[in-house]
């Protein structure tokens, strides 16, 4: 009796599942000429894609059904590889910058995008994150970058009568004034997580010293070394921040740093533009932004406008034409405007001029007009070997701030790491 009843239940379940499957499958097969699935790690952006981006795309291309299927950031690389290996990955693949995606291209998982007209709206710096080393083949369309600079508390600045510093001397003078005249922490930065020391410190202010792309390319060619004056000066400048950082900054983590600023207890915050949305939500004071201050006597300015997200096509996709249509649409001003306003702090990389509603995000993106853009100098090619250059830069930059390494020792360590494996530096 018990057996026969469970058997009936199983059959009923199967039948129901089959029916449900049929009901789900039918409308897709009937209505859409082709359907695209996007793999992504940006699960935070699910609403934006479903409510804004995909409907806007479907206004122009109603025949192409698009599904945004993100997974948690930490699972993405492993999850995507598994899906690609099993042949179940979506048609469009969100690309991490540089080597992670290059490896996917080399393994034949990403299609070449050469000849795609949408690529013409992007600069070479923007495309460099998703190209083969010789620059001959591009395999992802640049989607967004993050820009580095400094966010400051406008109320503290007006309370202390400070103006926005343009040169390093003015910057250091401002730090000294804040420390002497108030209880506020002059500069919000911690070294416990290490990455901020390199990313918000070294890579933020450095481009002004190593002249942006010139220095970055020279490092890759081997004509400049980390022991050159430009790099040592960058670390010297960071070392000078030490006395102006929060109490116990060595045990201060990234969320601590964000809280220190958004609670109004710190005046200056070395920032990545993605912090804007955090502060929009949390800070109840007015804040603004300024680009990395210039060394004495220099008029050319450089910013780190770092390529962060791209979109490529799965080589095994059956909807190649639709996928290319989607990428070309992503290269338009319409997408750029939509995306930039939906996610203040993530800036589209195209050549179109974009109008942003967020005033601070607009400040960041305006620097593109006055300063030259570059990307973090350890990301392309140089972080391929052992020891890993990016890990080394985190380590030594945090130690320079902690005062356990001098700028010269930091430079020597980073350079020794490159010497160990990188031919142009041997």
């Amino acid at each position: 009796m018990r057996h026969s009843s469970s058997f009936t239940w199983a059959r009923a379940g199967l039948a129901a599942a089959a029916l449900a499957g049929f009901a789900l499958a039918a409308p897709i097969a009937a209505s859409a000429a082709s359907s695209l699935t996007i793999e992504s790690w940006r699960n935070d952006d699910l609403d934006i894609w479903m409510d804004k981006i995909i409907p806007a795309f479907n206004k122009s291309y109603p025949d192409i059904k698009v599904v945004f299927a993100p997974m948690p950031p930490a699972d993405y690389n492993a999850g995507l590889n598994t899906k690609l290996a099993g042949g179940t990955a979506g048609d469009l693949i969100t690309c991490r910058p540089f080597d992670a995606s290059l490896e996917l291209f080399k393994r034949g998982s990403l299609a070449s995008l050469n000849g795609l007209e949408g690529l013409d709206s992007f600069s070479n710096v923007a495309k460099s994150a998703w190209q083969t080393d010789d620059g001959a083949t591009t395999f992802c369309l640049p989607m967004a970058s993050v820009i580095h600079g400094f966010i400051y508390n406008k109320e503290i600045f007006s309370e202390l009568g400070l103006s926005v510093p343009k040169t390093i001397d003015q910057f250091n003078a401002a730090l000294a004034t804040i420390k002497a005249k108030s209880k506020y922490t002059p500069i919000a930065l911690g070294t416990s997580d290490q990455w901020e020391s390199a990313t918000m410190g070294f890579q933020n202010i450095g481009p002004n010293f190593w002249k942006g792309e010139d220095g970055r390319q020279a490092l890759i060619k081997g004509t400049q070394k980390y022991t050159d004056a430009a790099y040592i000066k960058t670390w010297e400048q960071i070392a000078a921040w030490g006395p102006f950082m929060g109490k116990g900054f060595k045990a201060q983590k990234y969320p601590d740093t964000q809280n220190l600023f958004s609670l109004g207890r710190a005046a200056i915050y070395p920032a990545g533009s993605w912090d804007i949305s955090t502060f929009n939500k949390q800070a109840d004071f007015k804040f603004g932004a300024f680009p990395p201050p210039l060394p004495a006597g220099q008029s050319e300015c450089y910013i780190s406008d770092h390529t962060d997200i791209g979109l490529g096509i799965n080589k095994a996709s059956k909807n190649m034409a639709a996928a290319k249509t989607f990428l070309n649409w992503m290269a338009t001003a319409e997408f750029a405007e939509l995306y930039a306003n939906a996610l203040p702090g993530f800036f589209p990389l195209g050549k179109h001029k974009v109008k942003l509603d967020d005033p601070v995000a607009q400040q960041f993106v305006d620097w593109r007009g006055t300063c030259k853009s570059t990307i973090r100098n350890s990301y392309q090619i140089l972080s391929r070997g052992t020891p890993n250059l990016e890990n080394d830069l985190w380590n030594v930059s945090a130690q320079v701030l902690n005062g356990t390494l001098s700028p010269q020792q930091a430079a020597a360590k980073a350079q020794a790491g490159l010497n160990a494996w990188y031919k142009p530096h041997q």
Partner: protein
Amino acid sequence: MTRRFPLHIVVFLAPAVVIYTVFMIYPLLDSIRLSFYSLDETGLPYFDGFKNYFTLFNDPNWSGAFWNAFWNNIILFAIHMLVQNPIGLLLAACLSLPVLKGRHIYRTAIFLPTMLSVVIIGFIWQLILSPLWGVAETLMDFVGLAGFFGPWLGEKGTALVTVSLISVWQFVGIPMMLIYAALLSIPEDLTEAATIDGARHWQVFWRIKLPLILPTLGIVSILTFVANFNAFDLIYAIKGGLAGPDFATDIMGTFFYRTFFGFQLQLGSTTMGATVATIMFVIILVGVLIFFFGVQRRLLRHQL
């Protein structure tokens, strides 16, 4: 008539053997096999002999990180042996005192952190010790010790010890429980006889109880050793995968994590990761063998 094949033995052994083989022995052997391979440009594995091991021990860029992680791991283990297990023994001895009231409350309270997630433990202790918002400095100020407070989790000299002590705080309940159980199993006749013979409390503990629970202390040591050399989560939760400052808190687990899964721009290497995992297995195996043949078998076992 010949005896029937003892089929029931096979049937009873099968579940354990099958599950253990599929989920433990096979993956272990396969990862050892993987450590003898390298990947070519297209990601296909090819046999490479002992090259990965040679790189790990001879290339200063690998061996430096490896030995640093190894010694840090030894320190982590030493702190657990010197702090966690003696405190566990002390607590167990206190709990087994007949005069103690409310032992259930103490026992539960001390065992509770063991059951919490390391992420929560890491978060709570970072908040307590935070120089910005933490309560530690205020508490030290009450007893006039505020001058000794520092950002302990961020200093190169103190970070590893601090993380180790947090781990001790979390796991002290386990040795306590094991030793407590062993103490309870000592028959009262023995202690009573000793008392009648004129032994005092202290003498009863050292002369009667401690020798009887030595095998349990041995088991506690070996569990501590295995757990410490497999540790990863607390360091990762507090200091991240790069285990700073300057790799001061890097242990075998975090070193393996970076090698196998990669970190930020460092791409993971399954074959090199398998090599590190195999070495971790060898370290634990050698430690356990030394212990079993060198220590545990020589211990006198008293028949109760």
